[in-house]
Each structure stands twice: as structure tokens, then as C-alpha cells.
């Protein structure tokens, strides 16, 4: 696992972790047993740095490694489409923790 990057993944929850994995997902969709679409918005120091659209089947996971260098805060907001108003979950960490983990 790289020490200067964060992994982002999709499971039944959303998570981000230093040198470990970060997970993003939708327990409700999975609990309902249906395929669900999400939009994952990544923010660095409060500014959108990446937007990813993904579709998860029941019980499926998704993971992506995100470059993570410098001194800033990284936050991940998954939205369950079509609702783009309210993030479904969110996690946040800072680069000090990632690099220092």
C-alpha cells in the first residue's frame, strides 16, 4: 500500500484511511438487492478535485487509489443518484495522516 496515496473503495460503507483502504458504497442499495448508481465527489481542502460515476450491483464493491501528496484535507462524498443534493455518506482525512500512517 502506498504511503503517499489513499485508496478509495466501495463496499457497504464509505471509508478512507491512511495507508489502508478507503471504501465508498451504499448499504441501502445493497440491502435492497438492486443495482444502484453513485457519484463520488472528492474534495481537496474543500474544492472538488475529482468526480467519479459508478454503478454498483448488489453486494459489489468498488475501490480506487487516489494520489495524495502535500498538506491538505481529502474528503469523499458519495451521492446516491439521482439525489445530488445530499451526500449519502462522507469521510475525511488529511495528508499528514496518510503519509504518516
Amino acid at each position, binding site marked *: 500500500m502506498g504511503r503517499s496515496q489513499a485508496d478509495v473503495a466501495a*463496499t*457497504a*460503507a*464509505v*471509508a*478512507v*484511511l*491512511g495507508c*489502508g*483502504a*478507503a*471504501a465508498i458504497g451504499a*448499504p*441501502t442499495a445493497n*440491502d435492497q438487492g438492486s443495482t444502484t448508481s453513485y457519484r463520488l465527489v472528492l474534495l481537496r481542502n474543500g474544492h472538488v478535485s475529482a468526480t467519479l460515476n459508478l454503478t454498483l450491483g448488489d453486494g459489489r464493491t468498488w475501490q480506487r487509489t487516489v494520489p495524495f501528496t502535500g498538506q491538505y484535507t481529502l474528503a469523499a462524498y458519495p451521492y446516491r443518484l439521482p439525489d445530488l443534493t445530499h451526500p449519502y*455518506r*462522507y*469521510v*475525511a*482525512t*488529511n495528508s*499528514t*495522516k496518510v503519509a*504518516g500512517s
Partner: protein
Amino acid sequence: MTSFLLVATLGVITLGALFARDRAVAKWASIVALLSAGAFAAWIVFVAPSTVSYLQPVAAGALEALRALLAGGPTGAPSPTSAANGPLGNQALAAVAVVLMSALVPVGWWQVWRRYRRQAWIVALAIGSLSWYFIVAVRLFVPDGSELAGRASTFVFVPAGFMAALAVIRLTDKGLRRPVIRAAVRRRAPLVVAVAVAGVLVLVFNGLVNGWPPYWERLPGPYQVAGVERSVGPEQIASADWALAALGPGNRFATDEGDYTVLGSYGDQNPVFGDAFLYTSPTFTQSAAQQVQALAIQYALVDRRLSDQLPASGGYFPIDPNFGEYKHPLPLADLTKFNHVPGVARIYDSGNIVIYDLNGSAYYGS
């Protein structure tokens, strides 16, 4: 507990045999009691010394409550409005059953004295039924007393139930025989039998409703905050699995009563006692930081449902200074403050459960 009660039971049988002047029973019962006591003590000393520390808090709590009771102060038992007491129907049934049993047991003693005082086993049951009043006192005056009383009732109802049965037989018989006019007996019989059956049904249903586990712990049922088995669900297990997979085993976690056992078992983490302070203030404080450092807490698991429900067991945390005293769920701000503490990372979010990483945060002076 069962070993201890075996020794106590054999002791009571010995006592009963002595009262009944049955030397044969007294002899073998006392010998077996001594052997059992020796084996029990040896097991505690050589095999399971941690039993003492396991039971010490319960015994200390009971003694403290007794001291408080004798001093006329607060006993620590849940207030009448505590969620731990259960629904009003349960409480009413428990009250009726306690009154009924407390009245029947002495009638049973009277029957033993009149008819069976030379029978060692029955005298022993009469002596053992004294424990009924002990568990009633425990339920009323000891913190978490409903659990102690509920667990003990498994054993206590053997002798107490026998005394109650003797009493019911006697009272029913007496009710049918007086007045001695036959026509009146015929008229009264259905009423007497109905009262007896109703009384017995109250005791039976009380055993189901107010025994152990309590209503809020029984499965199946919806999620309950601090509901032991009823606090375990897919979301708790998923968070514990994630903690083990992502963080590794043995991390020191602050958590609530419901998630405590799941994190420790499924997650192989090291949840700490005495962490209520971390969840009962709306903002970060230096005092909390000092306690976090003293307990070496690395992560805090927050279940936001603590702000939706009162704790079913009476306390939100394994050691809860406000046990039985909660009138409202925890304020949401107390649970979400971690989002605003400098350096705290929000590393996991499953909707109800959020895990925060406190390492390198303001809690550690960073």
C-alpha cells in the same frame, strides 16, 4: 455461578436435614457440600482466578447499594421512568407477581411446619425459598438489579415455586371447603378455581415477561440502543469487520455498550471501559483530551442512534456514570463534535456508524 449455587444448595439441604433431624441426609449432604466447596475454591484459585475480578464489580455494586440503602440515601436503582424498567404492563405484572409470591411463600412455610417439618428435602426447600425475598430486594435496590434478580430467579423459583404450590393447594382446598354447606361449595368452586388459575397464570407469565433475558434483549426484534443481542446487526458487524481488515487487530477503541462486544469479537479490537466522557459533551475539551490520552484511545466509534433512543439496558456505555438516569437520548451534537475537532479523521461511515481516528489530533495535543 452454578458451582456456587450447587455448594449453597447442598448447604441448605444440610441445614434442612438438621432441622428435620434426618441424620443420614445431613451426613451425606454436608460431606458433598464440603467436597464441592473445596473443588469450587480450587477451581477459582488454580484455574479461573479472573472470576474474582469478573464478579467483583457486581458484588461491590451490591454492597454499595446496601450501604446507600442503610444510610437512607439514593440506591442507584433505575428511576421509575427509566427505559430499563420496561413497558408499564411488564412493571404492573411484575408488581402483582412479587406481591403474590411474597404472600404465598409464607403460607407455604406454614404448610411445611404443619405437615412436612420432618422431611429434610421439603424443609430445605422452605429454607431456600427465603432467597425469594433476597432477589426482590436486589431488584428494587441494586443498580442493574433486574439482571441479577432475573438471572437468580432461575434458581430461586425452584424452592419458592414449591412453597407457592403448597400455598395454592392449601388455599384452594380451604376455599372449597368453607363454608361446609355443600350447596355453597358447588357455587363457590368455579370462582375459587378461577382465582387459583389466574394467580398461577400471573406467575407463569411473569416468569416469561420479567425473567431473563428481559423484553428488550429478546430475539428476534428490531435494533435497540444498548440492547445487548438486539444491538447486533449487519451494520455493526460490517463496521467491526472493516476495523479488523483496515486497521488490524487490538486497537484501543472508544465505543458504546451495544457496539462494545461486536468490536471486541468480530473486530478483534480492544474497546475500553470508562469512555462515557467522550460522548457526553458537545465540544472538544482539554479534560477529554487528557482522559483520551490516559486511556490511550486511538479510535472512536460513534453510533448516531444513541441520539435517537434511550438505552434499553439503562446505560449507553459499559461503565456508565448516568446508568438508569437518562431521560432523553444523547444530544446529536455530542456525537458529531468529532467532525470539527482539528486533526480527527472521519475514516468510516456506514450511515449510522462512523469511526473517527483520534491519533495525531487535538486529543493528543497536535
